[in-house]
């Protein structure tokens, strides 16, 4: 390992924003990119652009959240979709059956995911490496199977929303725009949270855990607590946007809510952009959705889009494990100030 690092160019820039010349440049850049994305559908005036950007924003939020655990803390959560699904379910139940407002339901969805993460965290974060990854898969599958049998949540057929609900939000087409802007706001918030975690003392502790958990503990990082909070933080936004997503969908069922593949796609986005960086998940999500959209619609690749995506992933894992942003940071040290 160490031989590789010797070759790395000397870094001249400082990492901590409060010490750097312009502390929030990286954050501002990232947020600017997202704001432009949010405004893009207004420019084109097309519904389909809004739908595409919505998908990207959703991915950015999920990827940025996962990055707190995966990139900063070094724990591979393969079943992270469990928070999306559970939050979505709790919120949807409150919304559709109990008649709560969307906002309260989203809050409740986020909180229930956070609570699940807190309870789980104390138990499964003791596991390391592949064992942790396996446990997260097990939890997701157990949760899916449980919800599949849980009658208040509709069991296997899930729940549907009565369309009258959209009237409270100005009709169906108004509601779609509202959902979109809410998604945008949440994305900005999630990325901002990710940035402040990355540049905080708490975040430094997480990075130390990622590099060497035992050594970090010897230095005084209370790893069990820090890991649990990282887990909780990485669960909140998936829970909130789960509610928003299924509100938009109008129905929720166990299979789409707890689709393991969805977690893995999110990991791929984080990897593609560069794990452990703030901008990485944003770029990774955009790239991934762009590639996926292209493959799905291309005449040549549409039938084998999954295979092509798999091939790309393999190339990234084998040859660019640091992702786009990680690679740029290594290759062009002067970019480290901007590409955080």
């Amino acid at each position, binding site marked *: 390992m160490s031989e590789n690092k010797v070759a790395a160019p000397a870094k001249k820039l400082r990492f901590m924003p409060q010490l750097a010349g312009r502390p929030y440049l990286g954050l501002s850049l990232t947020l600017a990119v997202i704001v432009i994305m949010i405004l893009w559908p207004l420019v084109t005036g097309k519904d389909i652009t809004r739908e595409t950007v919505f998908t990207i924003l959703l991915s950015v939020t999920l990827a940025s959240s996962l990055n707190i655990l995966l990139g900063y803390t070094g724990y591979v959560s393969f079943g992270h979709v469990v928070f999306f699904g559970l939050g979505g379910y709790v919120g949807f139940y409150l919304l559709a059956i109990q008649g709560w407002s969307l906002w309260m339901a989203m809050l409740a969805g986020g909180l229930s995911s956070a609570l699940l993460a807190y309870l789980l965290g104390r138990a499964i974060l003791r596991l390391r490496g592949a064992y942790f990854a396996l446990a997260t898969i097990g939890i997701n599958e157990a949760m899916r199977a449980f919800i*599949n*049998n849980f009658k208040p949540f509709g069991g296997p057929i899930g729940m549907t929303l009565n369309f009258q609900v959209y009237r409270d939000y100005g009709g169906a087409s108004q509601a779609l725009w509202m959902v979109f802007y809410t998604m945008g706001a949440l994305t900005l918030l999630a990325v901002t949270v990710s940035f402040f975690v990355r540049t905080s003392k708490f975040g430094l502790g997480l990075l130390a855990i990622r590099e060497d958990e035992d050594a970090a503990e010897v230095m005084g990082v209370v790893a069990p607590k820090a890991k649990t909070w990282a887990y909780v933080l990485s669960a909140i936004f998936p829970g909130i946007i789960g509610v928003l997503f299924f509100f938009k969908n109008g129905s929720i069922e166990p299979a789409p809510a707890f689709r393991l593949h969805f977690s893995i796609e999110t990991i791929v986005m984080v990897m593609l952009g560069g794990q452990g960086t703030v901008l990485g998940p944003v770029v990774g999500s955009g790239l991934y959705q762009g590639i996926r959209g292209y493959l799905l619609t291309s005449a040549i690749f549409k039938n084998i889009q999954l295979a092509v995506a798999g091939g790309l992933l393999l190339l990234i894992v084998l040859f660019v494990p640091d992702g786009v942003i990680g690679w740029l940071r290594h290759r062009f040290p002067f970019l480290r100030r901007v590409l955080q």
Partner: protein
Amino acid sequence: MDFILASVIDGLLLGFVYGVAAMGLTLIWGVMNVINLSHGPIIALGMFGVYLIFGAFSLNPYVAILIVAVLGLVLGVAIYYVAVQRVINAPHLSTLLATFSVNMIIIGLGTAIFSASPRNVEFSLGSLTLGPITLLGTRVVAAFAAMLVAGALYLFLYRTRYGRYIRAVANNRDAAELMGVPSNRILALSFGLGTMLAAIAGGLIATFFPFTILAGGAYELKSFVIGVLGGLGNPIGALFGGLILGVLEGIIPTFMPTTWVPVVEFLLFVLILLVRPQGLFGAKS
């Protein structure tokens, strides 16, 4: 009573086949600490292999399984050299994602070629009625075949030179290398054996259940559960793990709705990971 007996026997017969699938997964983990996320698609390829050979040449499915086994071995070795070798010492995330990308490639190509529509190997060995219990011929044969495979694996690992090499590499790769074991080739062979077992399990399942190219996913998850039950890295433990899972799948539906089976399975899985990660029968530490 008949009801419970019939359920347990059904479960047990299936359990042998689950065991073979899980042996493949756990062998790879034991030798190289890689969780093979392409396990499911390879099981599905085993199913399709038998389906195609049976359909095209009208070969007996059990002969077809022999051919599928060889192909599975070759495929596994190829996957090792292409996708795994380079990241074998990298953090777990890399091997997980590398094997997952193989999963995507197989599923992607498989869906394009075979579509996601269900298939059936139209093959029957009739059934065997013993008092209140009716056993399907194909399932009985599959259970025997699974026992044979497990026995052969045991003999291979403990009675042959390459088997000893594999165990040596599993134990301590560096030390084995120093003693002159060609560790990279042994790793490739182990990966191939793991996928071969998966393909065989798929072939056996295809003789009695319908399947799609996506069908392997469920058996992959079962293999995780079994692997953890029997101790990850312990192929013989996996066979017992398979039997336990099979019996659970038989017994649970006798007193609660069948759809609760996966809830119990996965809770057990997480619980064992937390409490006894070395599995019920111990494994390499």
